[in-house]
């Protein structure tokens, strides 16, 4: 039942799929997605590795206080996750959507 919805769109899909601007945009969007995924993935796995191999480092106090380096790192990871999603959404809203809309419009979608 999923397939029947847009059977009439087949020609449109073929035309859009062959449009160099579409190909370029999709590649750019995919690159952004993979890069951001890699960043958050690496940050988290790096954090876990640090915990597994060097707990003492995370426990070192900052300056003369009691707050350890681990606190800004852990909280920073949470903020990084929020910031990266924000970045992606802002970028997609500002650039991808408008460019895709323009491409679709040219094909009469």
């Amino acid at each position, binding site marked *: 039942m999923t397939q029947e919805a847009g059977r009439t769109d087949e020609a449109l899909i073929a035309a859009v799929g062959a449009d160099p601007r579409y190909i370029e945009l999709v590649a750019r969007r995919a690159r952004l997605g993979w890069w951001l995924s890699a960043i958050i993935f690496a940050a988290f796995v790096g954090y876990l590795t640090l915990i597994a191999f060097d707990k003492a480092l995370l426990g070192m106090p900052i300056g003369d206080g009691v*707050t350890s380096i681990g606190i800004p790192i852990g909280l920073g990871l949470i903020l990084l996750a929020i910031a990266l999603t924000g970045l992606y959404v802002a970028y997609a809203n500002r650039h991808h959507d408008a460019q895709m809309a323009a491409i679709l419009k040219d094909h009469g979608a």
Partner: protein
Amino acid sequence: MRARLAGALAPVLVLMPAPAFAAALEGEAQRQPINWVAIAMFVAFVGLTLWITKAAAARTRTASDFYTAGGGISGFQNGLAMAGDYMSAASFLGISAQIFTDGYDGLIYSTGFLVGWPILLFLMAERLRNLGRFTFADVASYRFAQPPVRSFAAVSTLLVVSFYLIAQMVGAGQLIKLLFGLPYAVAVVIVGALMMLYVLFGGMRATTWVQIIKAVLLLGGASFMALMVLAQFGFSLEALFARAVAVKSAAAQAAGATPADAAAKGRAIMAPGGFIKDPVSAISFGLALMLGTAGLPHILMRFFTVPDAKEARKSVLWATGWIGYFYILTFIIGFGAIILVGTDAGYKMADGTLRGGGNMAAIHLAHAVGGNAFLGFISAVAFATILAVVAGLTLSAASAVSHDLYATVLKQGRANSADELRVSRITTLALGALAVLLGLVFEKQNVAFMVSLAFALAASGNFPVLILSLLWSGCTTRGAAWGGTIGLLTAFVLTLLSPAVWTTTFGLGPAPFPYSSAAIFSVPAGFIAIWLISRLDRSPRAAVDKAGYPAQRVRAETGIGAFAASDH
């Protein structure tokens, strides 16, 4: 050593929605005096949500209304509802309790639960919305032969949901005994009955609003607690931590430690403790959390309640923001509890442990900062939270049976909307009854492994199938259906052979599989199996599957032909 590791990792599970919390409670959930304020608050919440359910019922006519609220939920609303699905009583009570005892370790869980969301956004969210309609199987099976992939998705959904659901029910029973002073069986029956009412009559529309209200109450309550704690320390985190370290040192010294030892024990709450011992378990556990999030059927289903890909994107941003904010609050609440609850003899039993068990730290803190009324409020919110999560789970399982198995596999897409709805309602009734029954049967069981299993299954089965069907043109029907099944089975079998189940639950001696989380093996197993089977697939269907990729890709990227907000 292995057994010790399993024990050390057990609290991790606490993070996950209510179930694990239940495990932590086992054996120590004494009944409390009946808490009338909390019960009044809870009745008010239930009254409000039932009223909403009634309003939603009047507008639930088609399958689209039932499964996806007609697709008319905004990104902001859906983000709150997703956060509501995710911020369980366990993450609230469990993480704050973990911080209360061990300090820093609580933060590790929080980060693990959050990092799956960005990945879900970057790789899947928009494509999910553009290709899907009611269930994630719509997406996973888009260009494939329907019966095999739908059957896989339905079985996987039922498995993931069942383990989650049982654990939630047990958690609800234990929690209610603690918070309201009602008997366990009464609690389980109340949860089962309310969940059926929400889903049966209000469908996704009511379920979404229950989630939103609960999310707002929980965020509001937690914000108030964190503010009250910070206000006592001039809004200085350093001052808060310094006082917490001093409290822990003093406690250690009072327990007979030398001054040097006591100082070290105090400072220990600022560093990672014993919870992650070996790197394999650490990474494996992190993988299950991160990738499991992007494979949970009830979370994935929420992507179809919004009108388009743009709103789907915003949903994840809001969800990530709220959940992250909530975890930061929980961190402050945990440290606040060390100081305000840990030093107050009124919250402790004669032997120095917390009244009501270790997970009550946040509940006692609510009393310390807001008196009896606020205690009642937080107790009611904690319980409402379980109700909301259970309703979301049930809806996703009912959809898998009615939409994937009945309408698509059995009736081959020729079922009418009314019949499909009837099947989903019968399924809901059956699931509700089953959930209550299993909740009663498993009262005394260790349910922690069920939650870790739910996350591992989602990460090893659903996640690889979704990613490869979305992003790899070479994926075939056979690869998705069988490869996904292999991923699921690997996670399932390895979990059974792990210390938490083999040794702790069944008492069969040293576990054949030494790690507490299977994900580091089962997630690659899922990916490799799908890849290998697809590559070796020479069937005529494989050619069709591969030929279907370019068109699927364009639809996924552009939204051409996507199911509109309202299809009727």
